């Protein structure tokens, strides 16, 4: 008997059929991975199960223990012991751990909040998860890994028979990932059903008992652990064979574009970067590998003029001294930054595709103070075609696009300013396999046009596969340098983690 069984689920939104006659069973004590590209329908399916999309929106049935259930809202599904741990943390940062864990179902005695009981119960749940977080800590003081732990504790403090993890490792430092996996396995041992969503196939291989592949809202295939073949699964996901993930390397010039000389950064009395020097040449793809907090993001912030703190050292760009001030100045010089957090620093979420694409290059399209509509539209179309952005129209709300397409919209925005140097901070985060490959190809195409590219990623195979040259950064210092093809994942990770420096 399936714990939760989805039967012939179809759901339509204006312009798209997000799920098309999908049937799938989830069992207790099983880690069931949902795979598919962005827009394949995974998130929609999760939202249906979690009651975010009410039952009035779809056709088809949902059964729990063979009894039909209908969720009108998130509370309904939560009351039926289905809990979701979302990719973007849904904790109230200003409240304590215990307050968050009991948010919405606080324990009361005589009508007043029973803080003592809630504190004790929080402590119990956290202890069960093997965590030593104090329940009275304010959430914003916790690391991302710890916040996720609280999120899981919150889910478990309610009745949980089915736990859904929506890309739980997307924002997680490497060393926390293993801890999370151990935890998920122990939850499985307790008989809880797990639905696991991730773009990282190696995680799926390590963790999942069963895999269901969705594509364009349709059920494609299902595999159990003993017949996992990643090549077949990827082919199912993107609908074609993925022959070469990383494009061929093209030669680059010797002209130095960006030269960073002995810089140090201090923020809040903490040394973030310590006498670091590097060079990036025209047409070069320079990869930077490093763990979260190694200083890689701070380095980009500095170059782009958004770093808040003290800075020492010299930067020259295009043979001239360059003092970063603000993004406007960086863009004017030809430096752009694609940040890791699209929602926060990238998308104008109230705007449409076109508005988001042209916002940095409006001056180009402006004649006598007025924006030339046809010219800007034509330019947008060119990029939609070039980057293969899947959107119904240019006036489509950017918020409704899938992650990969949103990322491409932001890439277009910065390509339109005709940059000389592109800083890419984890550009494939939350992006599916097919779109990833397209982004790699684009990086090399841009490099072959003479643009310098500095590329940071939390996925090591990516940095190693894409870059001409790889720098390993640890504790704000460069600890290793390799040319393409002369290193391995283990070697880089070892240096990044400070094991064999």
């Amino acid at each position: 008997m399936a714990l939760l069984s989805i039967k012939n689920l179809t759901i339509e939104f204006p312009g798209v059929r997000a799920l098309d006659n999908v049937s799938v069973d989830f069992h207790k004590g099983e880690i069931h991975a949902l795979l598919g590209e962005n827009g394949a329908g995974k998130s929609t399916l999760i939202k249906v199960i979690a009651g975010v999309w009410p039952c009035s929106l779809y056709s088809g049935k949902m059964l729990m223990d063979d009894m039909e259930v209908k969720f009108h809202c998130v509370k309904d599904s939560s009351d039926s012991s289905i809990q979701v741990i979302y990719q973007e943390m849904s904790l109230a940062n200003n409240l304590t751990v215990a307050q968050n864990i009991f948010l919405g179902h606080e324990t009361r005695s005589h009508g007043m909040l029973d803080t003592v009981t809630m504190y004790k119960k929080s402590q119990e749940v956290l202890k069960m998860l093997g965590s030593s977080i104090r329940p009275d800590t304010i959430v914003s003081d916790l690391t991302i890994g710890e916040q996720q732990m609280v999120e899981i504790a919150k889910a478990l403090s309610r009745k949980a028979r089915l736990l859904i993890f929506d890309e739980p490792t997307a924002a997680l430092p490497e060393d926390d990932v293993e801890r999370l996996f151990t935890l998920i396995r122990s939850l499985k041992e307790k008989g809880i059903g797990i639905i696991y969503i991730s773009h990282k196939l190696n995680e799926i291989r390590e963790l999942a008992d069963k895999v269901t592949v969705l594509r364009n809202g349709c059920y494609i295939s299902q595999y159990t652990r003993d017949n996992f073949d990643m090549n077949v699964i990827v082919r199912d996901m993107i609908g074609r064979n993925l022959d070469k993930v990383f494009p061929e390397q093209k030669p680059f010039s010797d002209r130095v574009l960006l030269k960073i000389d002995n810089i140090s950064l201090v923020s809040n009395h903490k040394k973030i970067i310590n006498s670091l020097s590097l060079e990036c040449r025209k047409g070069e793809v320079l990869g930077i590998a490093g763990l979260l907090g190694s200083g890689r993001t701070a380095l980009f912030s500095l170059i782009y003029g958004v770093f808040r703190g003290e800075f020492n050292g010299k930067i020259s760009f295009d043979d001239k001294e360059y003092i970063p001030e603000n993004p406007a100045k960086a863009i004017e010089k030809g430096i752009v930054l694609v940040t890791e957090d699209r929602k926060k620093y990238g998308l104008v979420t109230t705007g449409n595709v076109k508005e988001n694409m042209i916002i940095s290059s409006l001056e180009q399209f402006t004649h006598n103070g007025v924006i030339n509509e046809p010219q800007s539209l034509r330019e947008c179309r060119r990029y939609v075609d070039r980057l293969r952005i899947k959107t119904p129209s240019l006036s489509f709300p950017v918020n409704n696009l899938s992650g990969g397409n949103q990322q491409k919209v932001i890439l277009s925005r910065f390509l339109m300013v005709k940059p000389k140097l592109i800083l890419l901070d984890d550009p494939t985060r939350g992006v599916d396999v097919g779109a990833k490959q397209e982004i790699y190809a684009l990086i090399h195409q841009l490099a072959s046009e003479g643009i310098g590219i500095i590329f940071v990623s939390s996925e090591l195979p990516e940095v190693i596969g894409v870059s001409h040259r790889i720098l390993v950064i640890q504790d704000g210092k460069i600890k290793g340098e390799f040319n393409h093809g002369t290193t391995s994942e283990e070697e880089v990770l070892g240096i990044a983690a400070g094991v064999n420096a």
Partner: protein
Amino acid sequence: MKTYLSELWEATNKRVLFMIFLLVLILGVFDILSGGYVLRAENLANLFRQVTVVAMLAVGMTLIIVLGHIDLSVGSALGMFGALTASLIAHMDVNPILAVIIILALGFAVGCLHGALVHYLNIPAFVVTLGGLIAYRGVTQYVARQSIPLRIDWIKSIAQDFTPDYFSFSLLALVIAAPVAFTSISHIRLKKANLPFEKPLWIDTLNLIVFALASIIIVLTLTSGDGIPIQALILLFIAVIVGAIAKHTPFGQYVYAIGGNKQAAHYSGISIARNTILVFGLMTMLSAACGIITISELSSAAPDIGDLKELDAIASCVIGGASLAGGSGAVGMSVLGAFIITTIRNGMSMIGIVAQTQKIILGTVLVLAVALDQWSRRKKS
């Protein structure tokens, strides 16, 4: 036929349609209740004169709200600059034209100061302009502690005169011809660039015909009385210019982007400081302009002019669908919102509803309008 209708329905902006429908409904109901008085030429002219100040403030307020801020000082600023204008002319014998220029420049400067305080010192706009609301009212009451009479005819004519017929009809021709010309040019250019039209040609044509008919009816009604109030021309001019700035210039686009996501706008190379200061500058300059119109209307400056006008302006924007969270709103819609508020007020006066009751009804309408709007949005998504 059916497919044409459904295509038309698809292409129609439901919000605009709803607002116009509401406005026509309100006008119709009050016209019947007042025994055909509301739609008469003289009352229609009155309506236009009553709406000008609120609508002009709503135009500026739209940009403020889109940017994600609020400006509570506009009513008091209107009073202060009105009183100062009157004082400059009546007490200091400054040339009236010079006085108007000085006041507009001063209004812009004061607004820029608001923007600078908001941006650089990180004081919420609510607080900065609440301070303005209180302080500028004080200045108004000080400068105009005794009502300052205005004796110069042309200043009074700004608000009290009407256009002669030949001018009204030329204007009518322009109001009809200009959108036709713009639509044609945009269609030709899109076609040349081989880009799809946003709407089919016939729908645009239909819209233009409806708009032209409405303009003809309004102008014919007004010219059967005294003519078009000069104030209405000023409003038309300001609304068209600011509306165009919002839609078709980088500055306008930046305002929407900043309101939508300030961080993203900053990372896209947009200067938050410059645009914030400009928007606040424009707002207070419009308040100053409204101050001049108000003293011209009253032929004098009194200590209470412009009182509570900020609330009318904000209400107009909200009824017009602007989101107080920033990022969305439209100048034209806020002007429609101002018309709705003013029409209700005007109509209620015509049928003899007392001021106290009027306030209760208006407050209710405001909340109902937004509730209805939210409900329809939720239904759509």
